[in-house]
């Protein structure tokens, strides 16, 4: 039976929880690499954080990047970064004074045969980015608190903790990917990061909901340990998790595609890139980090320790118990 077929039928039984050492070490390596990347490379902060001026325009003339750069340097602008997309151009410069900005704007219009009103200008003060990121941090903090409270009430504190840890995991790895790849970080990217948190949690919540349902039946006579039950629940929702992630990533991929090909650099691209990367990491973490972590936390509880001990003594080794998880398969209804 092919994997696709088994996936379609929902007949998956992978011991995700049992392989926690693999996931923990994989995530550990990823986190380490990310943190090193953040420390060594840092993030390539966009003009919104550094302050600067961005000119966007379209021209029907055939011009090269060099021509655009030279034309704008002629005005006496020092830092000129030129990006192109189709017949659209985006030129990033240092912060320009108001009058100078207007002059460059009209020069561009003249040089490239564009109506002056069609040269868009974006000017960002140097303090703006600080405020944006400060707000983002506050947003992150408030969001974390709200979510911990909500999940603690809807589920239980340990689930909230596992979900939050997975969240930081996603955040750090996504940031690490940005650090290593040198993708530009703009406010739209931050927005993407914050949205990833929502998705990552959304995914974890659906899995935890199932875990809660399955583990609620665990008692003195149950034939499953917490980890077996959790793994079971995980496999149960695996199709959903994969489907959901795929369905969520499809529109994001569409934005990314359009944003890169049609419009070039800008909000669309920045946001969708962050989402695209983050959603993939988020899907991985809700399956391979959040759940094993939850199990690690829960297995320490006396109630589940007792079950594990009893099952271990009747079935012998841990290996037997592992097999048991498979034969017990769907233990609901």
């Amino acid at each position, binding site marked *: 039976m092919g994997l696709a077929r088994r996936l*379609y*039928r*929902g007949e998956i*039984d*992978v011991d995700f929880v049992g392989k926690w050492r693999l996931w923990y070490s994989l995530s550990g390596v990823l986190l380490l690499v990310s943190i090193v990347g953040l420390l060594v490379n840092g993030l390539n902060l966009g003009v919104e954080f550094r302050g600067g001026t961005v000119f966007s325009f*379209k021209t029907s003339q055939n011009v090269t990047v060099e021509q655009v750069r030279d034309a704008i340097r002629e005005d006496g602008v020092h830092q000129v970064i030129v990006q192109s997309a189709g017949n*659209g151009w985006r030129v990033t410069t240092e912060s320009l004074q*108001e009058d100078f900005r207007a002059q460059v704007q009209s020069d561009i219009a003249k040089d490239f045969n564009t109506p002056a*009103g*069609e*040269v*868009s*200008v*974006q*000017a*960002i003060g140097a*303090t*703006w980015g600080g*405020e*944006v990121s400060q*707000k983002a941090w506050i*947003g992150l903090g*408030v*969001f974390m608190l709200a*979510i911990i409270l909500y*999940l603690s009430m809807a589920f239980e504190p340990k689930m909230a903790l596992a979900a939050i840890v997975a969240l930081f995991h996603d955040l750090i790895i996504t940031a690490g990917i940005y650090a290593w790849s040198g993708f530009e970080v703009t*406010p739209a990217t931050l*927005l993407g990061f914050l*949205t990833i948190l*929502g*998705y990552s*949690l*959304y995914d974890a*919540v*659906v899995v935890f*909901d*199932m875990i809660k*349902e399955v583990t609620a039946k665990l008692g003195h006579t149950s034939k499953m340990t917490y980890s077996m039950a959790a793994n079971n629940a995980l496999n149960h*929702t695996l*199709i*959903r998790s994969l*489907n*959901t992630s795929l*369905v*969520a990533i*499809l*529109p*994001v991929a*569409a*934005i990314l595609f*359009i*944003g890169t090909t049609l419009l070039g650099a*800008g*909000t*669309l691209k920045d946001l969708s890139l962050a989402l695209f990367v983050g959603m993939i990491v988020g899907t991985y973490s809700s399956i391979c980090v959040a759940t094993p972590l939850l199990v690690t936390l829960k297995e320490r509880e006396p109630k589940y320790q007792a079950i594990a001990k009893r099952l271990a003594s009747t079935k012998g080794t841990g290996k037997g118990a592992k097999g048991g998880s*498979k*034969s017990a398969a*769907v233990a*609901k*209804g």
Partner: protein
Amino acid sequence: MLLAFILAMGATMLLQKAFTPKLGLDLAGGTTVTLSPVTLNNASPPEEILDRAVNIIRERVNGTGISDAEVAKSGDNIIISIPGVGQSEAIKLVATTAELRFRQVLAMEATQVPQDLATNAPSPGASQSAAPSASASAAPSTTASGSPQQSAKPSQSAGAPSASPTGKALSSALTAPTPAASASAAPSATQSAQGQKNDKKGQNAKATPSASPSAQASTPPAQDPNAPQINTQGIDPAVLAQFNKLNCADPANRGQGVQDDPNKQYAGCETDGSYKYVLDVAKVVGTDIDTASAGVRQGTTEWVVQLDFKSKGAGAWADLTQKAYSSQEPRNKVAVVLDGVVITAPNIISPIPGGRAEITGGFDQASATTLADQLKYGALPLKFNRSSIDSVSSTLGQDQLQGGLIAGVIGLGLVVLYCLLYYRGLGIVAVLSLVVASILTYTAVVVLGHNAGFRLSLPHIIGLVVSIGITADSFIVYFERIRDEMKEGHRTLRAAVEVAWVRARRTILIADAVMFIAAIVLYFLAVGGVAGFAFAMGLTTLIDIVVVFLFTKPFIALLARLKFFAKGHPLSGLDAERMSEHGTAARPTTPQEA
């Protein structure tokens, strides 16, 4: 019920003849300026000062004659949206610091108004002839002798601009709040009569005989016999030239946002344009004010504005009023200049030592409170940092709109395709649900646009596109539950649909709650476009719940009665055979897998 909901939205759209969403400036083209006001010591300003700043900037923007501009507070920032391109002048104008200044009036003149303007706006037309009568009648009040000291509503009560010409022609009076000042209580009777006449749209002013100006005999006769003569003594010729050129009938010239240098003389207009002034250097500034309040004078029903100066300001204020008091009309007035325009120019009835002053004359509660607020917060000790200026041309905006819509269509298409491939018959439910969700979203955006000023911007579009995933997920959760129930095989489809719903409902609600919390947090803590994105996400999360509860679930329940689905046709997506090779009756034992 859902149908009624959609119909209601549709009807609203029809009634308002609004079928397209209102577009934000990043899509329609225009300039968005984000100002970050900070106090002079770089702290974030208190709420009330921020509100005041928003009002001042709104007045400035309106004063420039730009239509459809919006000034809004967003967290600690002020966001100004100006439609259309080429508004760099407007931007320069709005982002200057407003400071209150007290300047002695050196000369004043009523505005000359072109005839065509006068016909559609009776107020300025009246002021021409009203001018001489003003100086004539106001002159006696300098002596505080109790002669009809005519005073009218101060300019900032200009909710009804038509009432202002007489108000401008006359003036308020400034006194120390001592019992002696009760002299000004008497004129208030005159004033109220005046007020009534004001309501007749300045007829009174027109009726006033144009007496020749009395006080300035020494000045050479002006060429225009109607123009009041000006005592140019001590006036900087450059400022005088400016003054002569100044046309206060044109709102663009009213100087809002002009940085009047406190150390130089200044030529400026009254807020409603009825007068122009030459003003001396600012001897007292807004930061010298300790507090200001509006109140009713004891024993009367007259509204007055009380001013308290700080100790440093009190001395300067005493000097200024002493100087004005001993000067001749119109130099006996002290103009209060806010943001480059004269908000009021009361006569000084007596020198005012001690740092307390009282402005009287024709206030009602609203106008007194406004003036007090202007005095209190008018000195905006704020710097406006222009955090970001974003001017988007309409073609670039159109490109982005197009790009966003194409992305939306592609995204929706891919999701539809995937749903149909994976869920077959059930996929149709998903597709229809997405269609219903899209219709709801569209109508919501249109209705909000026309009733709540909601403008669709690029972040909104991204938010909406991204939310397709959230919406689709609800169906997936539900469908997977149904399939689970079917796989376990001991339920009929109709039972499975119901049992699965109970479980899926909980998951959907909890998961949507998480998204909703994220949206709310993002919305309230966000800057700029983030709020739009969050709003779109919150909106679609709500719509998702509505659609799943009111459309998807009932629709599936309906389908479950159909033979096609109930019997598990291979194309229904609920094909029992395909889902489990072990048949429908047996509890599936999953194959071993390493």
